[in-house]
């Protein structure tokens, strides 16, 4: 049966197994090389016969499998491509194969097996993320007493990437950094530095510093009991304890703690009972000379809905602030992160990000992650234009909905012709070319149908629009200046 087969409609698993060349001996490797060379020749011929576009659509993602007992396997990315290739190109593919390799008796198109999940962080080599952050594992067992329904787990280990080494210091954060370092190095808490209260805007590195202190304490003495939790988690636990009348267990959680860290303490404000409980916990730990470290968005003096006794307690130790980042700090952070990425990121891209993403460090790092990941996933070179594309949602308030009128106006102005020429019957090149550019942009930037576009250009037929689109697509390849014009206009129109 010399026929190409799409053998398993509705039975995908049957042919999922894919032979690999791993472990194959030299002879097999040579055979594989030869097979690949044949595949290249088959592809070349297909491309010639069916045209570039169709080739890319149907064979662009088809992969060469193996040749076994006269049966050659190809792998298609989707069922749809598999069926289509089998139905429409089957005979040709087989004939071409047989012309380059007489061993091939039939060709079978199978579905490519779904990719195995990658190992976390395989692609971006940012500082290592802790196991709890990146593995798809069941939640870790709870630490200490559980407080019934709704009680979340408490992290037992600091986030691996949040160390002092990974904290980039600059003018805006040097004081908070020094304060955190100092506290981490104390064997015993000093009353005048207890609590350490770090405040600053969202995403500037407060949590990072708290975790960094935790790392140092753990390294010095792994037996030191550090309890880190967010203020919300504190409130949530407390409310649950009240509900289940189990406040004893709740208090137990804090009793044996050596260092208590509460992140985003402003979330306790306005919650009276929780605030009282927090005040009580706080005092009893300070009395036992245990270190307390707090973070907040605001200094104690600016917290709202908070009792005075609480306010003065919070501000009674060392208060350190983190200011908004400067351009220099942002650039320096990006440089540090980029060094850890396996892909080189050009300096002008880092400068562009440092300039544009000025809100906070979290977003800055997120932006760099996105750019690097995009480069890796799509295999695109990292440039400023690429970063602009990838981060369009952060850089622009909205992608503008472009209208045909705007396109016509902008194109007419660019080529210095009258707007009326867009719909005039004149066919002189000086007006026909800009008109074609405008039609091309209308197809690219709007969802109007081709007949609708034709209508807006002096009631032209949709085949005229199709011709214009094809023409500009060709010219973009052969004429650099047209390609530049089109890109420039596109960018201007999209704002």
């Amino acid at each position, binding site marked *: 049966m010399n026929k190409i087969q799409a053998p398993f409609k509705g039975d995908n698993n049957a042919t999922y197994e894919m032979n690999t060349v791993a472990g194959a001996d030299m002879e097999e490797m040579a055979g594989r090389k030869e097979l690949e060379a044949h595949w290249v020749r088959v592809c070349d011929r297909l491309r010639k016969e069916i045209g570039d576009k169709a080739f890319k659509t149907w064979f662009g993602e088809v992969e060469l499998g193996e040749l076994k007992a006269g049966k050659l396997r190809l792998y298609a990315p989707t069922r749809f491509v598999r069926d289509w290739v089998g139905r429409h190109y089957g005979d040709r593919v087989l004939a071409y194969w047989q012309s380059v390799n007489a061993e091939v008796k039939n060709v079978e198109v199978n579905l490519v097996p779904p990719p195995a999940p*990658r190992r976390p962080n395989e692609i971006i080599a940012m500082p290592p993320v802790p196991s709890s*952050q990146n593995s798809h594992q069941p939640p870790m067992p709870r630490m200490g007493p559980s407080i019934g*329904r709704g009680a*979340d787990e408490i992290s037992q280990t600091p986030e691996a990437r949040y160390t002092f080494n990974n904290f980039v210091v600059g003018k805006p954060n040097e004081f908070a950094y020094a304060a955190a370092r100092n506290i981490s190095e104390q064997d015993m808490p000093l009353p005048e530095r207890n609590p350490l209260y770090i405040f600053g805007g*969202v995403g500037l590195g407060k949590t990072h510093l708290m975790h960094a202190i935790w790392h140092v304490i753990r390294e010095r003495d792994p037996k030191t009991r550090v309890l880190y939790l967010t203020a919300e988690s504190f409130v949530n636990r407390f409310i649950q304890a009240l509900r289940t009348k189990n406040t004893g267990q709740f208090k137990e959680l804090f009793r044996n703690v050596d260092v208590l860290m509460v992140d*985003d303490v402003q979330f306790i404000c306005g919650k009276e009972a929780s605030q009282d409980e927090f005040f009580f916990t706080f005092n009893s730990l300070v009395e036992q000379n245990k270190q307390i470290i707090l973070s907040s968005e605001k200094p104690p003096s600016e917290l709202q809905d908070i009792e005075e006794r609480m306010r003065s307690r919070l501000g009674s130790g060392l208060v350190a602030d983190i200011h908004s980042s400067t351009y220099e700090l942002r650039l320096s952070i990006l440089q540090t992160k980029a060094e850890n990425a396996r892909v080189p990121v050009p300096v002008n891209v880092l400068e562009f990000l440092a300039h544009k993403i000025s809100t906070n460090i979290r977003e800055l790092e997120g932006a760099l992650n996105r750019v690097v990941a995009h480069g890796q*996933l799509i295999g695109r070179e990292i440039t400023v234009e690429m970063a602009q594309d990838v981060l369009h949602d952060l850089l622009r308030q909205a992608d503008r909905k472009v209208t045909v009128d705007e396109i016509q106006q902008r194109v007419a102005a660019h080529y210095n012709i009258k707007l009326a020429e867009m719909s005039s019957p004149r066919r002189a090149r000086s007006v026909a070319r800009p008109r074609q550019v405008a039609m091309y942009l209308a197809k690219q930037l709007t969802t109007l149908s081709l007949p609708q576009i034709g209508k807006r250009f002096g009631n032209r037929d949709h085949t005229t629009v199709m011709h214009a689109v094809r023409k500009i697509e060709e010219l973009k390849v052969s004429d650099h200046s047209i390609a530049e014009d089109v890109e420039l206009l596109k960018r201007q129109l999209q704002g």
Partner: protein
Amino acid sequence: MANQLILDLALPPPTYAREDFVLADGNREALAWIDRWPDWPAPALSLNGPSGCGKTHLGRIWAVRSHAVVMEGSDLVGKSVADLTDLAAATPAILVEEAQRAPERGLFHLYNLMRERGGFLLLISPEPPARWSIVLPDLASRLRAAPAVSVSPPDDELLGSIILKQLADRQLHAGAGVVQYLVSHMERSAEAARHVVAALDRRALTERREIDRRLAADVLADLAGAS
């Protein structure tokens, strides 16, 4: 009435299998992100784009792989922290469709809970989170830092493939000429493709006609008249 009564079953149940996904330039990166899971640089990923561009399909592919719980943003309305904690404890992955409708505090808690547990959120919405009007700065900052990938409306090839897929889902066949005709004459969105194929199906059935260019032209004229 001469027309045969046709039960309008609207759209047939779409198949969301990975092998039925039609890959194109506009969705290649989105699929790459889905395949890359759980190697995401943040606990959340935003998948955004206009209606009918394939977001749901991508989301379902991920949900199958990650054993995610699937919900809508509005499902989070009225949920207490305890409810969310239970939810987060029950699953390592949550797919939130229409995520822009989620209440801010609820989404913020859920994000934090998932992060603490090493879980993941896939947020599907028409616009990227950076363009939602978020009041809570902590939530805004977290979502802006997470990767957001846009799925673009289809180009001609993808649109053609979508039409073919829609036809195949209804066990209909049409020649390449009909598909070509539709691609060059209809509004170029996946949503429109769905409507056009549904209308073709209906009309072919009621009028007992072949699906050819003439029927396609009639259907497009009809739809243009209706809009």
